[in-house]
Each structure stands twice: as C-alpha cells, then as structure tokens.
C-alpha cells in the first residue's frame, strides 16, 4: 500500500509539473506579444503626445473653470476589454467608486468592458454608456470621434467633467490621471474668454466637440501604452513564479522518485534476506 501511494503521488506530481510548465509557456508568449504591442503603442503615443497636450492648452490659458450648477458630474472612464494586465482596470474602478460616493449625481461613460464589470454591481444606475471592443487594435482618431459623437448625441449635460485614464510613465509604472472636461457653458463663461477675438457659438461648439474627440484619443493612447506595459510586467512575474513552482515541484518529484526506488530495493532485499534466513 505504501508502494501504491508512492506511485500515485509520483503521477500526481508529474501531472502538476506538466500543467505548470504549460502555464509558463503561455505566460511567456503573452509577455512577448504584449512587449511587441507595447513597442508599437509607445511609438504611437510619442507622436500623439504633442497633439494631446496641445488640445489641453486652450483650457489652461483661458482659465476655464467648472460651470456653477447642479447638472452633476460626468466621468469618462477609459480602459479596455482585456484583463491580466495588473492594476490598470482596478485603479480606474476604485477612483470612480470614490467619486460616485462623494457625488452621487454622477454619470459615467465607460470605455472598455473591464471597468463595467467592476462598477456594474453597485453603481449600475450611474452608468450612462458603455463602449466595447476596445483594446484589441490600436486606437485611431476615428474611434475617439465615434465615442465623442455618441456622447454629444446622447445629450448628457454636466457642470463638471473629467476623463479618467492611466497615463504612461515608464515601462514599469503608470499613473491614474484625470483630464478636466468643460461644458460649452463653462467655456463661454471662462474668465479670459473676452481676450479671445470674435467668438460665438458657431466657433465654440465645433471647437469643444473636436476638443472632446482629441482629448479622448489622447487618453486612449496613453491608456493603451500603460495597459500593454503593465501586462508585460504581470506576465513576466507570472512566468517567474511558474518557474519557481517548477523548480520546487521538480525537486519533490525527484525526491519522491528516489524514495519509491529505495522502498522497492528495501522490499526486494528484505524479501531475499527472509528467504536466506529461512534456508
């Protein structure tokens, strides 16, 4: 019975060893894939940064402030559909939750399934719109324009707004950041707006609409780069952990194998010894 148990344990260990080795292969290949996607995303982000920063300049220089009013808050939470990328989605979800708790009159436009899953349970009625099929291919301006158009068409009104996304810092770090969003009224009432020559709603409306699409595009690009670098790190850690487990399991396997052999030898020798003493 000891012998049988030893054999069974050996089989179990070897099954576990095989499965952990497979997992390590998968995480290593996921790491390679996200490394390639990260390189591309970072290159595109570098080209998009002057555009994104330029799009924010007017609001800073004109000292636009949030509208005084009770129309509530709009949060556009930018993330993606896919997981296994570390803290990317959960950090966004956490901040949205604290914001809604502080200001219940908040509407959220969610870009990406993962954040929807986080918010669905408790804050389903704050969710105004969800955008899916995000993250599979790199974002282009047309995607951001589509989202911006849907937001405009839905007629959401807000006094205070922000875009929440993960700004890319380095390969190993990202920062959850927010970009302020201003309604047309807020722009029209900006303290420095009179400095700007001959403006009317004919110019302000298309300007703010294009601005929304541009800011959304920029946040998508930043978020994509953060996501890929985070996934690369996560998969790298997973491969390392799997490697450690494989080492430990291999040790256990070899020890168990040697124990089984020793037991067999003992039984054979004691059997032979018993026969000899009988004789």
């Amino acid at each position, binding site marked *: 019975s000891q012998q049988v148990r030893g054999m069974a344990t050996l089989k179990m260990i070897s099954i576990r060893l095989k499965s952990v080795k497979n997992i390590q292969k998968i995480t290593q290949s996921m790491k390679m894939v996200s490394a390639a996607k990260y390189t591309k995303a970072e290159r*595109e982000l570098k*080209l*998009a*940064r*002057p*555009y994104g*920063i*330029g*799009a924010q*300049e*007017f609001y800073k*220089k*004109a000292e636009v402030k949030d509208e005084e009013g009770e129309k509530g808050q709009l949060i556009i939470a930018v993330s993606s559909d896919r997981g296994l990328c570390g803290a990317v989605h959960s950090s966004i979800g956490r901040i949205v939750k604290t914001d809604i708790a502080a200001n219940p009159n908040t509407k959220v436009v969610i870009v990406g399934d993962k954040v929807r899953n986080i918010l669905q349970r408790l804050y389903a009625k704050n969710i105004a719109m969800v955008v899916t099929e995000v993250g599979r291919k790199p974002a*282009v*301006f047309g995607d951001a324009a589509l989202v911006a158009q849907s937001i405009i068409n839905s007629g959401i009104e807000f006094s205070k707004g922000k875009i929440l996304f993960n700004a890319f810092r380095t390969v190993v770090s990202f920062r959850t950041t927010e970009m302020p969003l201003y309604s047309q009224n807020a722009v029209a009432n900006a303290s*420095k707006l009179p*400095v*700007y*020559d*001959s*403006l009317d709603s*004919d*110019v*302000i409306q*298309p*300007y703010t609409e*294009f*601005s929304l699409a*541009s800011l959304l*595009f920029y946040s998508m690009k930043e978020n994509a780069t953060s996501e890929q670098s985070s996934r690369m790190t996560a998969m790298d850690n997973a491969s390392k952990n799997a490697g450690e487990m494989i080492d430990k399991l291999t040790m256990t396997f070899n020890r168990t194998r040697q124990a089984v052999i020793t037991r067999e030898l003992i039984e054979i020798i004691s059997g032979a010894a018993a026969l000899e003493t009988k004789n």
Partner: protein
Amino acid sequence: MERMALTRSALRLFSGRFTQACQVRGYADAPSMSLTFAAPSQVLYNNISVKQIDVPSFSGSFGILPAHVPTLAVLKPGVVTVFENDGSTKKFFVSSGTVTINEDSTVQLLAEEAVPVDTLDISAAKELLAQSQSQLASASSEVAKAEAEISIEVSEALVKACE
C-alpha cells in the same frame, strides 16, 4: 469700444499681408510665436518658433503673426502655409481641425489629418472629386447628403491644393 473692435478686425484682415505697418503697438524686436502643429498620429511642429502661419478656417482664411489677437477658429479643408524663421515655406493640406491662438502668442494647430502638399496626387484627387459628386447624386438620406457634401468640399480643396 467700437474703435477697438475695428482696429482688431483690421489687424486680422491685413496681418497676412502688411506686417509692422498696421501693428498698433510697436515692439523694439519682433516678438516670437511658438507653433505646435500636430495631427493625431504625427507631429509637424512642436513649440517651434515661426514667422507666420496662414490657415484656412470657416471664419475666413487668415494669416497669423506674432502678437496676433487671441482667437479660436475651426479649420476648413485647405492648405496651411508655415513661414519658418529661416525664410523657408512649407505647405500642408489639412482636412479639418482647430486653431487656437493664445495671449502669450502660442499657437496650437490641431489637424485631424495633415499631409505635405507635395505628397498629393492630383489625379487621385480629381477621381475622389468625381466619386463624391456621384455620391451626392445618389444620396438618399440627409446624413448621406451631408457626408457627400463634406467629401466634395474636401476633394475640391485637394484639387485646388495640387494646382
């Protein structure tokens, strides 16, 4: 107040052609203008000091010089001409976008698409124009008509830019 508005629009009208002559304020040395001209997927100028920028906008085409009055404008399909400090001129075709001129003479020109004019192919542009015109003819809904009209406007500007 009215005089101010008149001077301001006069500045705007003539700033492309008559430079120092119409400047009400006189500067000892020409103030600089920092241009950021970018599209979502490319950077053409990033905080570069330039002499003059001519932009096509829905409120009229105008030239931007240092100390231009702050304003916002929406770009029309057309050619943006950048006069650089060393005297060279570069032309770009833009499809749409916005231009912001701030108080501190920084200019942000954000175009949805911007390409150097010498990369345009006139035969392809004429073909696009013909296509958009037939699209307009066969358009049924208001949205389709509007889209076709936009397409015609862009292709006409493209053909004009190539000539």
